[in-house]
């Protein structure tokens, strides 16, 4: 997928990997729309990208809210054109500090699914039709190692990411023949605020920097066919 000139939407774009990916894709010529809750932080990221000479726009949206999806896609498409690349990066780990499933409120579990699973479903549905009709597009979901391995305290998050992987795989078998590509990526653990909030005592020096992962992700987007519908991305490279 050519990044230069592509209309890109990155959710969860106000910090961490989303912000880094916004910078990286704009640096490579993408016309970037960043979406997240919290307009101030989001505007600061878009402003920094523009200061570097890139194109970036900030749209406030709660990806867990059904009513937010069409306004977001509409405003984004008005700004940069029919979306070519959508990155589902917005996510919540749920209740902090993390709790076991036995102690997780249904409402907290539901909110994790709304943001991490239903949000990407609704957003994909709002763009997949035009992508399939044009025979062109990339939907990339940020998954997690917690989608594959069960970790105490990460139940709701892990379930949402496992389901997200399957959601993307299913979109791929249903619409892949149209020329639209659906992909999930498991990034290495990164030094982000989300990670620090979930695991305050973790050793930060062993974590990847979001910018390194963003750069590998941009390589993956710009490159040819990835090896699989789900790939792992670390600072050193991409693996199936």
């Amino acid at each position, binding site marked *: 997928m050519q990044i230069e000139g592509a209309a890109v939407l990155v959710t969860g774009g106000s910090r961490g990997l989303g912000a880094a990916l916004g910078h990286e894709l704009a640096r490579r010529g993408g016309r970037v*729309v960043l979406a997240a809750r919290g307009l101030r932080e989001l505007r600061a990221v878009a402003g920094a990208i523009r200061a570097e000479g890139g194109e970036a726009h900030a749209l406030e949206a709660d990806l867990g809210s059904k*009513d937010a999806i069409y306004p977001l896609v509409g*405003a984004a*498409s008005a700004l940069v054109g029919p979306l070519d690349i959508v990155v589902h990066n917005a996510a919540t780990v749920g209740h902090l500090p993390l709790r076991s499933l036995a102690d997780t409120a249904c409402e907290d579990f539901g909110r994790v699914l709304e943001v991490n699973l239903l949000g990407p479903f609704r957003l994909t549905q709002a763009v997949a*039709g035009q992508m399939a*009709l044009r025979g062109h597009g990339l939907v990339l979901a940020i998954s997690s190692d917690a989608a594959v391995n069960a970790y105490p305290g990460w139940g709701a998050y892990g379930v949402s990411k496992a389901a997200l992987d399957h959601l993307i795989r299913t979109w791929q078998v249903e619409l892949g023949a149209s020329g639209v590509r659906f992909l999930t990526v498991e990034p290495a653990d990164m030094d982000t605020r989300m990670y620090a909030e979930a695991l305050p005592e973790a050793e930060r020096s062993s974590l990847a920097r979001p910018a390194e992962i963003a750069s590998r992700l941009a390589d993956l987007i710009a490159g040819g066919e990835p090896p699989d519908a789900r790939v792992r991305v670390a600072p050193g490279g991409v693996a199936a």
Partner: protein
Amino acid sequence: MRPAVWPRDGRRETRLLHADPHTGALLDRWITDLPGSLRAGDLLVVNDAATLPASLRGRTAGGAEVELRLAAATSSVREWWGVLFGGGTWRQRTEDRPAAPELGPGSTLGFGGQLAATIEAVSPISPRLVLLRFDREGADFWAALYQVGRPVQYSYLAGPLPLWQIQTAHAARPWALEMPSAGRPLDTGTFDELRRHGVSIASLTHAAGLSSTGDSSLDAALPLPERYEIPVATAAAVGRTRAHGGRVVAVGTSVVRALEDAARAGRGRVGPGHGLATLRIGAATRLFAVDGLLTGLHSPGTSHFELLQAFAPAALWATAHRHASAGGYLDHEFGDVGLLLAA
């Protein structure tokens, strides 16, 4: 004909009245029968415009209630043409709505504290049609518009429409002020079936405008000039289809307007690029680019109905309209559709 008062749950539950302009035959079908009504080698062209929430409630500087319906974008990002209504809501018929106070250039309008506009000019067509300049642009403008704007809708509907109900399944850039509704019954599965039958599908973007304002002088001027863009691949597909004896079937009158305008600009050949559709299509119009039409069921007297007569004589439409009314078909944007094409 009775109006559809609410969108159906499933796009595929839409009925299709296939009228053959040569024989006059009327065939009762479903939208899912569309692949069988077309031939291998035919091309279906859809309008991929997403629909804006183009109705904005606001107040004048003097505090009077107004509704602004966006009517056309201009080449300047902050400037739009719009139609003003006075108080009241979509639940009243547009012709029964009170007029907005007459507002001259320099008058300001505020929309919920999030967006404001200044009137720059008043159209000679009607004092209700005004050129406005909004107070913001870029992401700030679009975010505010999507926050304060609501779908343009009419009094026959049962309730306020959420934004997603006025989008086709293939909506891309938000250029339309009212939904390009002929494409609404088409979903991804129907497109797949059409392709399996050898029918190609292409898209263009056309800024479908308001269908009615309740102001007779303004309604007589509809449709206003509407911008469109035809992609290179679509222009090529139209040329290829016609060269091989296939038929170009427009989904909706907006597609007819765009393709026929482009064909005139290209001296009979549809070329790619941007344009402004100004052509008024009616019984006397010779069609250069389009052979058939999938359309909503429009009532006599509307500009849409006038356009249909380029495809078949008014008498056939009158017969089809009676057949559809007697058969329980539903009209308006969430209703059933007609296909005008040799069977």
